[in-house]
Structure formats: structure tokens, C-alpha cells
């Protein structure tokens, strides 16, 4: 890095040509270096231009757009948009449906995020053993990650039918399973289950990488001091892997908030509204009910929730995440 700085001169530094001493001792090199730094910076801007322009058009503009649409009423027949002020917000906040959707989203995330942390860590500990063929098991837990969410949801749709595989096997051990996807008591549980199985492999791999970076000497030192395995885990390993705990929590939060396909494929938000979460609700309102303004307002809420949670997690980071420096 230091060498790089040397060859490229900080653009914020005063122009070397302006100094009289510079002019005497090395005017030509000074000018050349300033020139080079500018040319280099121009290359920098050119190199990032495609990504930055793409970001503006396909990310920033849509985010701004969703705020604009949320104060409009779009008529799909005339194709006209009328300004309606906060009307969509009032309608949305007054509707029982949206309250239920928010509650469902909270329940969904409240189970998916801790499940990713706990199960991910347990799996990582399980596959962090030096035993033969452990790589096969690591790969096994990763299989749902690589196959598509659609394929994963569809096969679980088959297995979770009333007379699908799962209840058949449960009957063999004397359990009378519910109609998983059609029972309002169980539909959300099923969606959460399918989501966690699909993604927990990533959490496992992240935790595994973190566990393998914990210095062996520290664990040994604690053991010699008489710490039991559980104490070693709690007091030595866990504090050291808090950055990964943070990472997994953020990833699981984002993934739980953008869940859509599994709801669309397994329950379509039902039965009733029992599995309608925000991501699905936005799609349904925008592309099935054609309530563009209303759906955009819900999308604004989703955006604000993501923003809030991200800020909260970054703020809380200082309080509990171990920092090496």
C-alpha cells in the first residue's frame, strides 16, 4: 500500500508545481508525477464506471423510485400516476392485513436468525473433527445451498403434503403428523424449517473457517489450567469467533427478509394469511393485485426495516464483537 501511494501521489496533496523550491530542484519530475497521478486516477474512474453506473441505474434509482411510487397512485388502465401524498401509508398502517404481515415477518426472522447461529455453529463443531470422511459430511450439509431454492421448495412441497413422505415416515414411529402446509398452526413452522435447512450450510462453513483459525495454543493453555471442554468453548472459542457470529447474523437477517420463493411455491401466503411475509406481500400486491402504490409503500417499510436492523447490528458490534487490534 505504501509503495502504491508513493508511485501515485495523493490527489489531495498540494500541487508540487506551485512550490518555488520544487521548480528549482525538480520541475520536470514533479510535473510528470502530478500528471501521472491524474492519469492514474482517471483510469481508476474508468475502471469502476461500469459498476458505478450499473449501481445508479439498477439499485439507487429503483430505491429512490420506490419512495416516489409510494406517494402515488398508479392506474394501470390509463398508465397515469397521480400524487396522493401519504394516503398509501395511512391505508397500509390502518389495514389489519399489513399488521399480520409484519408480525409474520418478525416471527419468521426471529426463528430463522437464531436457528442459523445455533445450528450453524453446532454443525461446524460436528464437522470440525479430524476423522475420516468428514469432508463427505461437510459437502452433505452444503448440498441444499447449491441447489436452487425452487428445486428445494418443490421437493419439500411433495414431502410435506398430508400424504407425502414425511407423514408416512412419522406414522411408522407412531406419530400422526399434521397437514404441514395447509394447517395454519404448522404452515409457518414448515416454511421456517425449509428456509433454515436450505441456508444453514453457509453459516456452517463460515463458523468452520472461524473455528479453524482459533489458535490451538490458547485452547491448550486453557485445558492445562483445568478448564472443562464446555468452559473452553464458552470462554475461549466463542469470544474469538464473535466477528463470524456477527457476519452470520447479518447474512441470516438479510436472507430472512428477502425470502419469497418458498412462500410463493409452498403456501402462497396461506392458509389465510398465516405465512404471508413482507417479501411475498410486496410481490402479491404489485404483480397480482396491481396495487403498485400500495406495494411500493410496503417496499419502503421493508427498506426501512433493513436499514434499521443493519444500523442496529453495526452499532451493537462495538459492544460484543471481539476485535483483534
Amino acid at each position, binding site marked *: 500500500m505504501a*509503495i*502504491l501511494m508513493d*508511485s501515485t501521489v495523493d*490527489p*489531495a496533496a498540494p500541487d508540487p508545481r506551485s512550490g518555488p523550491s520544487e521548480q528549482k530542484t525538480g520541475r520536470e519530475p514533479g510535473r510528470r508525477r502530478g500528471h501521472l497521478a491524474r*492519469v*492514474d*486516477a482517471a*483510469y*481508476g*474512474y474508468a*475502471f469502476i464506471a461500469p*459498476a*458505478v453506473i*450499473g*449501481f445508479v*441505474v*439498477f*439499485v439507487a*434509482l*429503483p*430505491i429512490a*423510485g*420506490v419512495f416516489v411510487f409510494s406517494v402515488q397512485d398508479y392506474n394501470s388502465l390509463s398508465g397515469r400516476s397521480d400524487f396522493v401524498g401519504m394516503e398509501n401509508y395511512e391505508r397500509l398502517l390502518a389495514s389489519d392485513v399489513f399488521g399480520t404481515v409484519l408480525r409474520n415477518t418478525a416471527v419468521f426472522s426471529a426463528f430463522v436468525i437464531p436457528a442459523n447461529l445455533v445450528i450453524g455453529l453446532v454443525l461446524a463443531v*460436528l464437522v470440525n473433527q479430524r*476423522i475420516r470422511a468428514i469432508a463427505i459430511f461437510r459437502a*452433505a450439509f*452444503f*448440498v441444499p445451498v*447449491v441447489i*436452487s431454492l*425452487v*428445486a428445494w421448495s*418443490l*421437493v419439500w412441497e*411433495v*414431502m410435506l403434503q398430508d400424504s407425502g*413422505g414425511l407423514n408416512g*415416515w412419522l*406414522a411408522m414411529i407412531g406419530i400422526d403428523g399434521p397437514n404441514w402446509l395447509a394447517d395454519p398452526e404448522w404452515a409457518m413452522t414448515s416454511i421456517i424449517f425449509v428456509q433454515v435447512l436450505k441456508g444453514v450450510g*453457509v453459516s456452517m*462453513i*463460515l463458523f468452520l*473457517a472461524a473455528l479453524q483459525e482459533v489458535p*490451538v495454543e490458547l485452547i491448550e493453555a486453557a485445558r492445562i489450567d483445568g478448564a472443562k471442554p464446555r468452559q473452553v468453548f464458552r470462554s475461549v472459542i466463542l469470544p474469538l469467533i464473535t*466477528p463470524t457470529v456477527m*457476519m*452470520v447474523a447479518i447474512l441470516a437477517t*438479510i436472507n430472512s*427478509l*428477502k425470502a419469497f*420463493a418458498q412462500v*410463493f411455491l409452498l403456501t402462497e401466503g396461506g392458509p389465510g394469511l398465516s405465512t404471508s411475509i*413482507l417479501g411475498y406481500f*410486496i*410481490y402479491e400486491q404489485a404483480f397480482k393485485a396491481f396495487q403498485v402504490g400500495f*406495494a*411500493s409503500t410496503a*417496499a419502503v417499510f*421493508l427498506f426501512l426495516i433493513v436499514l434499521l436492523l443493519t444500523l442496529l447490528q453495526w452499532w451493537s458490534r462495538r459492544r460484543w464483537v471481539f476485535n483483534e487490534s
Partner: protein
Amino acid sequence: MSRELTTAAVVAPVDARGRRRARRARTGGPDRRTRLGAIGMYVLLTLVALPFVFPVYWMFSTGLKTYGDVFENPPVLWPEDPKWGNYLVPFTSGPFLQQFLNSIYIASITTIGVLAVASLAGYAFARIQFRGRSVLFVVLLSALLIPPEVTIIPLFRIVSAFGWIDSHLSLIVPAVFGVPAVLGVFLMRQFFLALPAELEQAGRVDGLGRFGLFARIALPLAKAPLAALAILTFLNSWNDFLEPLVFLRTQELWTVPIALQSFTDPITGTPIWNVQMAATTLSVIPVLAVFFVAQRQFVQGIAGTGIK
């Protein structure tokens, strides 16, 4: 177990040997307890792994059943008379081959585009000094936090303004320059940051310009992260669901995930389960095949976005 022994051996070798001898005497055989423990561990691992891998088998075997056998009780693990023909039905009854090819070419073009956009920008963010570099990078990264449902409605308008509704451009262009590219920028920057500066200085001496340094020196060294990024991008494009669902209309233009959920009875709307599972299996096989061949790149690509 082995780690505990080595620890003890380092600290007090004599004591460790003595303890081991004592244990052997107690259990009446060498490592019998360890072996039993190992078997128990494998049983446990297998049980835990079951819900992760068994569905893939169930996908495959359901694809071989008759429609009536799908919900047979007790469940049929392997049909007596496997209907291999089910695996041909998607191709004969609809444009599944066309949809498969659509997915392959969309994912391929998207991948090539993302590699180009991401390696250029990732390189610049790591190795070139320019004003606003770190701010721009953080702003770009924020794209990774936004759920696609937030932006899908305005994106639909933008895509229709370009005239791309019901065209594959609606899937390719926003991916090449949008969120998947940002993911790539992040991955490539991580790699280029670690590149020794001496290499570029040598290139400078040889008279290479900035683009030469990037294309002739940095990029050839980046094969590993490029491979990981390629696999990740291809996989994400192959698996995309929301965007093709919203942007594509014509059946012949659909991608595989949209096609899979369309194997339904035209009158009742219920899925034709066995054919659907056959098609789903076909869609999963190439991905799993590549996964088992290039496991390391897969894991690096997917986990690399999380590891700092």
C-alpha cells in the same frame, strides 16, 4: 481425542504414556472406546445429514414413480417399476429443452459480463488511488443489503422503459451491472488487495500502463478468485426466481426455475408431481455435478463473500 493426547504428550510425555497404558488396561483393548465413539459419531452425523441430502434422493425417486405412487402410504422408497419415461416427458410435452438452453446461455453471458465488470472495478478499488475511493466502495457494497423485493417494482418500470419486458436482456443487463456485479467487485477487491506491489512496479519498469498492469499482470494471477466468482455468479443466475417470474411472459423464453413450477394440471392447477420432480432432478444434476468436481471454488465463492 488425538489432540488431547498430543497436548498431554507435549506437556508431560511420560505421564501421557502411563495414562494411555492405564486406560488400555481398564477397557481391555487398544482404543476400543475410541472406536465405539467414532461409530457413534458417524451415526450421529448421518442422522443429522439426512434432512439435507435425502430430499435430493426423494426428488430423483419421485420422478420415477407413477402419479398414483407419489403419495402411497407407506412411502415408496424405490418404485417397483421405475418409469424412466417420466424424465422425457418435460421435453416432449413442452419447451423444456429450450428453457434449459435459455438458462444456460443467460447464466453464461451474465457470468462473463460480471467477471469483466467486477475484475475491473475490484482492481481499481484495490490498487488505484483516486478521490472518493473508499466512499464509493462502501456505497456500492450497500447494494448487497437490499432485498430484491424493495427494488423490483421500479426495476420493472426501468426494464419496460428499455423495452426489455419478455426479453432476456431484462435478466442479463441488470445482473451484469447490478447486485451480482457488486458481489464480484467485493470478492475481486479482496484478492487484488493482497497482491504484492513489487509485481506492478516491475511491470511499470517494463513500460506497462495502468491497463497493461491490470490485464497483463494482475488478472493472470487472479484465476482462482475468478473461478470462484464465475461459479457463484453462474449459480445465482441459474437459480434466480423473482426476476424471471416478473419479467418474462412467453413460455419459450422462460428459465428453468419458472418452468419447474409450471408442470401443473391445466384444469385443476395441481402439480403433476412425478413429472415435476423428474424435471427438478434434471435441473439439479448439472449443479451438483459441478459442485462435487469444483467443491473448493464453490465454497470459496459462497463463503468468500462472508469471510473478511
